[in-house]
């Protein structure tokens, strides 16, 4: 992966099937390019804060939006959310939580930590589009023509 290219969407998801379904929904929306995947919370934070394996990356290269699963190995989603929202460099990045259910505890905690929207899994295109509308991110997903690589 090119360390310098601009990443628009970071998906943090450990379940392979969920990840595949989410990627499929994005693909249906023609958004497969500029997507970065993190398989656990630690990897997600390394990526966002350009640490560890991603130390060479620049923070201004994104991501522009983060799709975050809550139940993650190593560092869980709420902790990742907290770190992102607590850091002035990253707190403006919209975070969409991918929820498995309507567990009240998760919803309350997420809101407390400043989450921007929810998508209940499995992620399909309609729901993803609705979430994007919630975020008012037309500039990112609708108004900018996707750049198709290769």
């Amino acid at each position, binding site marked *: 992966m090119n360390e310098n290219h601009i990443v628009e969407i970071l998906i943090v998801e450990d379940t392979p*099937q969920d990840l595949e379904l989410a990627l499929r929904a994005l693909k249906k929306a023609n958004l497969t390019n500029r997507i970065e995947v993190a398989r656990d919370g630690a990897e997600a934070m390394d990526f966002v804060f350009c640490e560890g394996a991603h130390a060479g990356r620049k923070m201004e290269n994104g991501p522009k939006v983060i799709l975050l699963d809550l139940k993650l190995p190593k560092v869980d989603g709420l902790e990742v959310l907290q770190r992102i929202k607590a850091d002035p460099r990253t707190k403006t990045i919209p975070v969409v939580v991918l929820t498995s259910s309507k567990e009240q505890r998760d919803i309350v905690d997420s809101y407390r930590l400043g989450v921007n929207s929810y998508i209940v899994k499995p992620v399909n295109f309609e729901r993803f589009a609705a979430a994007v509308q919630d975020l008012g991110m037309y500039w990112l997903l609708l108004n900018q023509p996707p750049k198709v690589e290769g």
Partner: protein
Amino acid sequence: MLQNVPIRRKVMTVNFLISAAVLLLACAGFAGYEVVALHKSMMLSYTTRAQIIAANSSAALAFQDESDATRILGALKTDPRIMAACIYDNTGKIFTRFPTNAPAQNFPAAPGKSGYRDGSLQIFCPVVQGSRTLGTVYLQSDLSALTDLYHVYAWLCAAIVVSAALLGYLLSRGLQKQISVPVLALAETVKTVSRRQDFSIRAKKIGNDEIGSLTDAFNQMLARIEEQNKSLRESESKLRTIIENLTEGLAVSDLNGQLTHFNRVALEQHGFSSLEECRLHLNEFTNLIELSTMSGTVLPVEQWPLARILRGEPVSDLELRVRHFKRGWRKVFNYGGTLIHDADGKPTMAVVIISDITERVRVAEEIRKLNAELEQRVIERTAQLEAANKELEAFSYSVSHDLRAPLRAVDGFSQAVQEDYGTQLPDEGRRYLQTIRDGAQRMGTLIDDLLMFSRLSRAPLSRRLVSVEKLVGEVIEEVKPRQPGREIKIHVSKLPPCRGDAALLKQVWVNLVSNAFKYSRNRDPAVIEIGCSCGISENVYFVRDNGAGFDMKYAHKLFGVFQRLHRAEEYEGTGVGLAIVQRVVHRHGGRVWAEAVPDQGAAFFFSLPTGEGGNGETKL
């Protein structure tokens, strides 16, 4: 000197002395008079005789006839009392004498004056012839005549005095009874009263004199004393009855710590069988019993309640442990007491009030022990419950995330096949795919319902006043649009507000109203009735429909989780709705039940307590 003599003798002595003095005085006066009179009459008698002799002897003198003169004088010998006699001539020389042989010195040398002298009566009488004095006659008589009379008078006086005294004695003996008998009777009564202490005796009244008044006054005094004694006895008896019937023990001590009285309860408390046994000094009690504080410190006798009361310290509500050395029993007594003062404020005795609180203390200790045990158990159970709750939470959290992942894969990839390869599949294949997706989604719903059920059981209740009418209105508005094209008549009666958790109660109403809509969907029109019957302690709300109903013999299964009375093809559902209703109502302290007739309709009732502050939340 008569002070200590009985009054009877006093009266008699006085009488006797007075009469004796009067008699003596009278006799003395009489005797004096008689002596003077006798002297005079004797003088007169002898003077007369001397004058006779003088007259007779004048011739003899004139003629100096001595023998004649001697003869005249000789006549005197008839009178033995004449001691001597003589005739003087006018020169004063003894002319003749009688008795003739009497010596001349027996006669006065010359005539003198008449009178009593030398224990005899001497009479001089001149012999006169014409105007010439011829000589003087002299007579000397002894006084034996007087002495004889004196003796007679003395005897007479003595006889009079003795008989008068005798008479006086007899009279005063009779008369003194008038005074002494009433006085003595009174004195005897007084003695009897004081000896027998019997104030009912009365003195007999004799006469209306001063002693009579005294007797009356004395009797009145006795009556007063008797009356006062009676009322004193009555009040004492009342007091005694009260003291003996007190439920507390009462002990009385003098100011030296000598116990004088125990009432019945106090005797029982200390194991005494008679009043005599308790009459000990405070110090002697230390050989019988031991007093210690509630925490077990043995008290020296100076710290015992009575000792403190005697020192003037007020004692109240002092709880002490008591141990009887010989009998071995242990009790707990509550002590109180005070010094008792007389009207002048001087302390007269000490009173100790004793309550046996052994049983109370034992029960209190038992309760304390049980409470401590209970508290410990509550702590343990709470910890267990908290652990179980945590486990359950972790479990349901895990269920909600992990159990769904495979389902999502089933549903998501089935959808992907439908979308990407649907056109390449035969109809049968597409139907199978749809069935797979339906199954997966139904399982998702089941998991959601189950999680909700578990969450409703655990979430804390936030009770506040809830307007049921508003709540039901909202529920109907939410549920109704899900039933398009149906004619449904809904009657909502007046619904009183209740206290409870609005969110949970809304879930109850949603479930009941949805059920009513669901099971009446084959009716045209469907009639749904919502109402409440208000009671004092609880309000019973109900939802009635004219739908499918059910057989009452399965009513007991209605509220169980996943229990269904209808086949899934007839009426969809997970069988969790009524279980949620029951759980929420129970947690509000209410009850839930149903009545139904197959194919005619069902009515679901639930009660909520009206009492504010809640009758306690029934957990799980």
